[in-house]
Every structure is written in structure tokens, then in C-alpha cells.
């Protein structure tokens, strides 16, 4: 009897060491900022938050981290926001979630802190992606878009200029590969794993061919997908392993000197150019190629800040969002963490450009970057499309079969009873 009681008491004590909210009744307002783990120095963001606290006495900001995986964050937010009482006041949202969250009524409009006049100061793509039924629901925090990396040294050796069209890229890769005769060298690596990144790549190819994954000219769409498959089987400039490649694996391959061209996000630049990297100083960055007659079509990425409807402190949360997306904060984050700002003016900011000259090259790309389909149905559509495109990449389906299967599923999703929203652009 005593033994049992003792055991239970020990267990209870064990449970008792739960250091959660050790603040007793705090007269201060506590804002909880929920976001995924960021790359780079976390102290920079903490520093910004402390600065905000200094400027707003009586407000404390507490960061809570989620894994950087977009899927896991989405799961967390969905569970909490649907339950009603979300235990946070600010959240970092992926560009493609804003429509969905806004439609669900989970986040509040931000027009008050970023009126339409001021929205002009941001890139048009993110603003478009964050606008639902005429209102802005999230403020763009940092921006990303697909770019082409190339080995400057190899291209120079063969007198080839960075390609502007996809056929040019194929020719350049074949030329260099023939010349180098290196079995370990790949021509062109991109993200072909079955996940959201694949949709970005596919959209970039199809849109630069005048079509799209959903709707648009079906024949040209098939040609676009066929092109992706052909880089592997016909032109032989891409290894089959792209079927399992995500951002990091392609970055590793390119970064160890084993690829000529790479499609990736701008984040890789800093890693490729740092001390000890085998390709340091040999890398160039250019806009993505397109098919002749069409403009380049980089896909928009990046993250935004929003506030849930259930927040008890909407005013202070809005203030914090305003602060974090202010020019000074964005400049700091760009300088010290390498995230690309969403305010256009910063790209002509002398000190910033001097420290990060790449920004000049990135500016026109970000200006052109188009969001993925702007609809609350996007994640449903993407989930239906990912396996189909992946099947094309690894050769289990032809582009026609894949597109047909995907559009059948889309019709089923959107055409199902009680779907109250008409989808533009589909």
C-alpha cells in the first residue's frame, strides 16, 4: 500500500516538473508568435522582438517554434484554428495558405495596417496571393522565387552564354557534358520529388510555354511535362534521381560540383559561395529559361504574417506585424539572415545592395514571379496533382494520362455538391 502510494507520488512529482508558463498573473500583454524554424541566426529575430518590446512597454512577445516542414506547420495551424481558441496571436503562413485560411475565416484582414496605397510598395505577386475577396489577409514577410544556377567556369570554358530558352539549356548542357566526359557530372538538376516543390517546377516549365497545369492549352501543357521527362530519358542531361530530389539534395549535388545547371530558390546562393564550398566563386545566377516566344515564369514562394481571429490582442498583434515588415526590420533580416525583403524600395537601398549585390539580379525575377493558383482549393488541387506529375517524371504515366487524371480529380473536388466557391482561372 505504501509502496504503491510512493510510486504514484513519484510519478506525480515527475509530472509536476512542467515548466510552462512560469509567469504568474502578468499585467503585461503576452503576444505569442508562432512560426517555423528559420535558417540563419535566430538571435536576429529575437533582437527585433526585444526592440519591439522596448518600443511598446507592457507587451511581451514570446516565440514558439514549429518544425520548418511546411506540412507539419499546416497540420498544427489547421488543428488549432479549427478548434476556435488558437493559442497564438501571430503566425507565419506559407504563401499558398492565405486563401484557404481567409476563406475559413481563421485570419483577420490586414487592410488597416497595410492600406491599398501602401501595398504598392510591396511586390505585386505576394499582395495578389494574400488578397481574398478584395481584402488583404496577410502581410508579406519574405519572398522567394525559382531561379537558375549555373557553373560560370564550365560555360566559359565552352564559350556558352547562360541560356535564355529551355532548348538552349539542353544544347548547352549536352555540349558541356560531351566535352567534359565526366560520368559523375549532371547537366540539369531540379526538384522532382512528389511534393509541393515539384508543382513549382512544373508550373515554371508549363507557364513558360504559354499553358498551365490547370486549364490553359492542353497540348502545350503536355509538351511542357514531356520536356521534363525528356531531360531524363531523351536528352540525358538529368539523372533519374531527380525523382527523389528536393531542394537540399539538388543543392548538395550542385554544390559539390556535380551539376552544370540547377533550378532552386535563392537561399542556396549563400551556401554555395561560402568558405570551403567546392564551387565557391564559380556560380552564376540567372532568371529561369522559357520556351521561345514566351517570358520566363518563376513561381512565387515566401512567407507572410497573419493574425488569427481568436487572438485576444488584435491591436498589438497588428502592431507587431507592422513592425516586422517595416523597412528597417526587413533590411536587418536581409542583411543578417539572408531572407529577401518584400518591400521593393529596399532593392535600391545602397548599403543593402552593397552587402548583398545579388539583390539587384533578383529584383526583376521577384517582380515577375507569379503565385500558384489563387484559390482556397489550392491545397486540394495540389495534392491531386502531385502524384500525377511525379508519375510523369519517373515514367509511370504519359503527360496526357497524368493531366487527364488530375483534371478528373479537380472536377470531382470542385464540382462536388456544396462547393460554394467558383474558381477563377480554372
Amino acid at each position, binding site marked *: 500500500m505504501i*509502496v*504503491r502510494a510512493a510510486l504514484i507520488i513519484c510519478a506525480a512529482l515527475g509530472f509536476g516538473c512542467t515548466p510552462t508558463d512560469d509567469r504568474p498573473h502578468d499585467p503585461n500583454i503576452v503576444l505569442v508568435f508562432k512560426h517555423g524554424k528559420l*535558417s540563419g541566426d535566430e538571435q536576429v529575430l529575437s533582437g527585433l522582438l526585444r526592440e519591439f518590446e522596448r518600443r511598446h512597454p507592457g507587451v511581451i512577445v514570446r516565440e514558439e517554434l514549429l518544425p520548418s*516542414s511546411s506540412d507539419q506547420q499546416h497540420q498544427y495551424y489547421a*488543428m488549432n484554428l479549427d*478548434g476556435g481558441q488558437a493559442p497564438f496571436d501571430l503566425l507565419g503562413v506559407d504563401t499558398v495558405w492565405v486563401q484557404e485560411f481567409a476563406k475559413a475565416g481563421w485570419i483577420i484582414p490586414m487592410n488597416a495596417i497595410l492600406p491599398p496605397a501602401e501595398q504598392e510598395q510591396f511586390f505585386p505577386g505576394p499582395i495578389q496571393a494574400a488578397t481574398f475577396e478584395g481584402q488583404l489577409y496577410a502581410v508579406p514577410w519574405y519572398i522567394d522565387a525559382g531561379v537558375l544556377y549555373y557553373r560560370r567556369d564550365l560555360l566559359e570554358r565552352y564559350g556558352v552564354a547562360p541560356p535564355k530558352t529551355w532548348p538552349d539549356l539542353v544544347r548547352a548542357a549536352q555540349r558541356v557534358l560531351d566535352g567534359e566526359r565526366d560520368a559523375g557530372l549532371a547537366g540539369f538538376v531540379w526538384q522532382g520529388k512528389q511534393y509541393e516543390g515539384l508543382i513549382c517546377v512544373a508550373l515554371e516549365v508549363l507557364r513558360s510555354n504559354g499553358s498551365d497545369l490547370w486549364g490553359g492549352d492542353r497540348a502545350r501543357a503536355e509538351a511542357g511535362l514531356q520536356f521534363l521527362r525528356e531531360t531524363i530519358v531523351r536528352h540525358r542531361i538529368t539523372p533519374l534521381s531527380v525523382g527523389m530530389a528536393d531542394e537540399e539534395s539538388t543543392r548538395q549535388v550542385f554544390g559539390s560540383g556535380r551539376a552544370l545547371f540547377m533550378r532552386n530558390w535563392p537561399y542556396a546562393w549563400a551556401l554555395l559561395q561560402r568558405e570551403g564550398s567546392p564551387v565557391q566563386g564559380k556560380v552564376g545566377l540567372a532568371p529561369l529559361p522559357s520556351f521561345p516566344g514566351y517570358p520566363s515564369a518563376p513561381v512565387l514562394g515566401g512567407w507572410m504574417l497573419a493574425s488569427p481571429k481568436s487572438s485576444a490582442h488584435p491591436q498589438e498583434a497588428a502592431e507587431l506585424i507592422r513592425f516586422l515588415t517595416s523597412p528597417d526590420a526587413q533590411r536587418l533580416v536581409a542583411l543578417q539572415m539572408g531572407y529577401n525583403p518584400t518591400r521593393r524600395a529596399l532593392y535600391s537601398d545602397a548599403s543593402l545592395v552593397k552587402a548583398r549585390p545579388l539583390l539587384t539580379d533578383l529584383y526583376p525575377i521577384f517582380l515577375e514571379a507569379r503565385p500558384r493558383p489563387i484559390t482556397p482549393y489550392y491545397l486540394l488541387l495540389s495534392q491531386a496533382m502531385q502524384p500525377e506529375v511525379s508519375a510523369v517524371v519517373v515514367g509511370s504515366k504519359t503527360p496526357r494520362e497524368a493531366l487527364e487524371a488530375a483534371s478528373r480529380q479537380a472536377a470531382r473536388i470542385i464540382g462536388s455538391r456544396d462547393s460554394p466557391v467558383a474558381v477563377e482561372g480554372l
Partner: protein
Amino acid sequence: MMDWFRTRGWALCMLALVGLFCLGPVLWQAVTSIKLDEDLVRLPPIIPDRATTVHYERVLFQSSLGQSLVNSVVVAASATAVAIVVGGLCAFTLARLPIGGKPVMLGLVLATSMFPPIAVISPLYLLMRGLGLRDTLIAVGLTHAVYALPLAIWLMTSFFRQLPGELYYAARVDGCTPLRALLMVFLPLARPGLAVAALLVFIFSWNEFMFALTLTASDATRTAPVAVALFPGLYEIPWGDIAAASLVVTLPVAGLAALFQRHIVAGLTAGSVKG
């Protein structure tokens, strides 16, 4: 059949292969964890010519892995304590006491562990939030204890069934309550079986990821597997750091298992085979 193995040389050779199979991937992680960042994707050489401790430094001193290891220990120990105590009482009942509907009870308990966790996680999270236990170690420990209960109960029931009934009746005739009989008579005999169950529950709780991820939110409550999941930044995956972290998270459990392995076999021998 035992003659086969008399050629010890051959047997040891097989053992080496087995060792390679079991430990190979983990050893590869160990090698990865001492490679410099630039060498991470360079193959050959398998064993790098230059080594670094930077990954371990980052993992142990510059991240929250240390705190998360402590949390893991607390959660796993508490979950084990609760599962063994509560489960042990239930197992004793199912083994020795004349209550009705035993197969139904066993079946019900088993059924709850058959349901896929992914569907349960959302209502469970809301339940914990409703109870005010969001982001506490209690929530994680309690969940782990409950989900480990079926296994613990099953193992201990079959173990208690093996123990001789005469001792129990002798104790009861002497005037002990069933509970006292359990504590005075059965427990000392049951140590191997309890050790097995305890180790299984501990390993389950230590390695459990999904519930731990969902029910915790801050550094102060995170457990080790969740901390490892937090190493990758957006797009960037620090393989060296992750390798170091994986080893740091695995070694305590492997060590514990090594310590207990004597008890495991003894317990499993007595408990499971005769059903």
C-alpha cells in the same frame, strides 16, 4: 542442428555479418557526425581523413537538445511508472481475480491501440487543450502511458499467469487482501516480467514522435525526437548536426537496453512462450 554451430569460426563470421547489418547504418551516422560540412557529400573516402567535433558542439551546447533529453527522461520515466503501476494492477486482476468479461476487457484495451494515431491526434489535442494541459509534460506523459498500457497489460497478464497460484491462495488464507498478496508475494517474483514491460514502455515513450510534437510547443517541454525534427531550417538540412543529434538521442536507450537485456530474455522466456 547445434552441431552446425560447432564450427565456431563460421558462426562468428555470421555474427560479424549480423553486427554489420544491425550496426552498420548507425556506425555510418557516427562517421557522418564527425565529418566537416564540405566533406559530408564526398564519397570516397568512407572514413574521412579530417574529423571535427563541431556538430556535437552545436548539438549539445548551441541547441535545445540538452533540455529536450531531460524532458524525454522525465516523460519516459513517468509514463513507464504509470503504465507499470496501473497496468500491473489491471494485469493482476485479469490473471488472478474472478471478474467477468475478461476477454471483452482485453479486447477493448487492445482495440484502443489499434486505432491509427493520426485520426486521434486532433481530438486528443483539443482534449488536452480543454483540460488546460497544452504544452505540458503531463499531457505527453499521460498520452504515452495510456497508449503503452495495452502492451504492458498484455505482457504482464501473461507473466502473472505463469506464477504459481498456490502462493497467492496461501497468502489469502493467511488474511491478506488481494492487493497485499500482489505486493508481498507476486512482485518479488515478477521482477523479470516487469523489467521487460518497463523497458518496452520506456523505449516506446522515448522514441514517440507524433504525440510529442503535437502536444508540446516550447523549448521547455519538447522531447528529444521533436528537437531533432527542429534541426532543419527552411530548405536547409544540416546532415552533420542531425547525425550527431541522432546518436545522442539513441545512445541512452541503447545503453538502457543493454543494461536490461539479461532481464528481458528471462522475462520473455517465462512470460510469452507458454502463452
